[in-house]
């Protein structure tokens, strides 16, 4: 097969897979939608304020409820020392 055709075929294949991913996202999104709705109603029932993403620090477990300066308890410019802090930054002042 001609080289350019092979490459174009590869691109077409990748785009087809991307379309499969899109269809998957629609399908799985509907499924997950129910779960998210369930979690919203659980949050309402239990009065939850935060996602339980990380449990290693107070400000990581309940970022919205933490003291504003919690990440800097040791020193105002102390470096972040919890790994989850790489994804969960301290809330803005």
């Amino acid at each position, binding site marked *: 097969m*001609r080289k*350019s055709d092979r490459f174009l075929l590869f691109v077409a294949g990748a785009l087809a897979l991307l379309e499969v991913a899109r269809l998957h996202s629609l399908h799985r999104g509907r499924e997950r939608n129910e779960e998210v709705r369930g979690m919203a109603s659980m949050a309402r029932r239990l009065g939850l304020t935060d996602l339980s993403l990380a449990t290693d620090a107070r400000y990581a477990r309940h970022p919205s409820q933490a003291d504003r300066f919690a990440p800097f308890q040791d020193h105002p410019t102390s470096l972040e020392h919890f790994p989850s802090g790489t994804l969960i930054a301290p809330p803005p002042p």
Partner: protein
Amino acid sequence: MKRLHIPTWLERQRYLLDFTLSSLGRRKGKNLALTALYAMVVFGLASVLMYTQALRGEAMRILEGAPDVVVQRMVAGRHDLIPADRVERLSRIRGVQEARGRLWGYYYDASAKANLTFLVPEKFWGKAGEVVIGEGVARTRLAAPGEPFPVLASDGSVVILKVRETVPSPSELVSTDLVLLSEPDFRRLFGVPPDLYTDIALTVPNEKEVPMVAAKIRGQMPDSRPITRAEIARTYEAILDWRSGLVVLVLAAALLSFGIVAWDKASGLSADERREIGILKAIGWDTSEVLAVKAWEGAVISLSAFLVGLLLAYVHVFVTSAPLLTPVLKGWSTLYPSFRLTPTLNPFLVSTLFLLTVVPYTVATVVPAWRAATTDPDAVMRS
């Protein structure tokens, strides 16, 4: 002489692509490694962006169920227990339909080395001495319904509670570390006097009155800190903002260093490449065709990397629940949620990634070739 004739143009581009692929095929190993490296950078970037974007989307929807206002008491700049009589005072503020004292706190379980969140629901459906635990708690403490659940109380005694049931798994994103229990059990375990609560949640039916209510609370109780639901939402907007977060920073650095490598590779046109461009020009190729070949060269590598990286990132985040990102979230904790986020292939995200990866790389390949492509074709005869 040269009008744009679409079939001829297309055929010409296919020929140029043929040549580009043959040309890349000469250093197959090197070019494949380069593409793989680039695909990995795209994969990392796309994974973080997809993950945080999906998480933010779910957080926004879930937290619509959060209390309208949470009132904390601050003592010397720290969150402290709030007197129960304030429930009454807060409920009298105009716009507040209901005020409710909440009891919750953290408990470090030394045997599982896990931080748990103990919480008293408004209406606990279990009996005294019973707990309802999140899936994550069940996993790390290996406790199943019906089994004992020992807790070290604040007075040093060990209180044996009993697991009534677990919170169903699909809600792990909010419930994984929860231990739900009755109010008397909570007060007994943590030694909280009956006239104190952790904080107070308010129901304010009219959203527009929330800022006013918050201002009033600050005025009437200067040591309090009201947190509105909008502020909660803003916190999550901010922490899951794709610009923040060291991961993106690190990846940006990776992208940058890759850019430098790519630039170095592309800009340092080798003597061979220069000679080749000379030959092409000598046998009748035009400057524009030489540049088109260079553009194809950049596009073939970066487009392949983009497509492969994007697809792998989708599978990684939404089919396999991002195993490479969880170590970051897990951090030093032993208890972490397991969840599969709502998949999205956001067109904005996809096009941003495309523009960030394919365009600069292609430009970085074409620009250095410009000089070589515009030299006189007879240069090749003089060498």
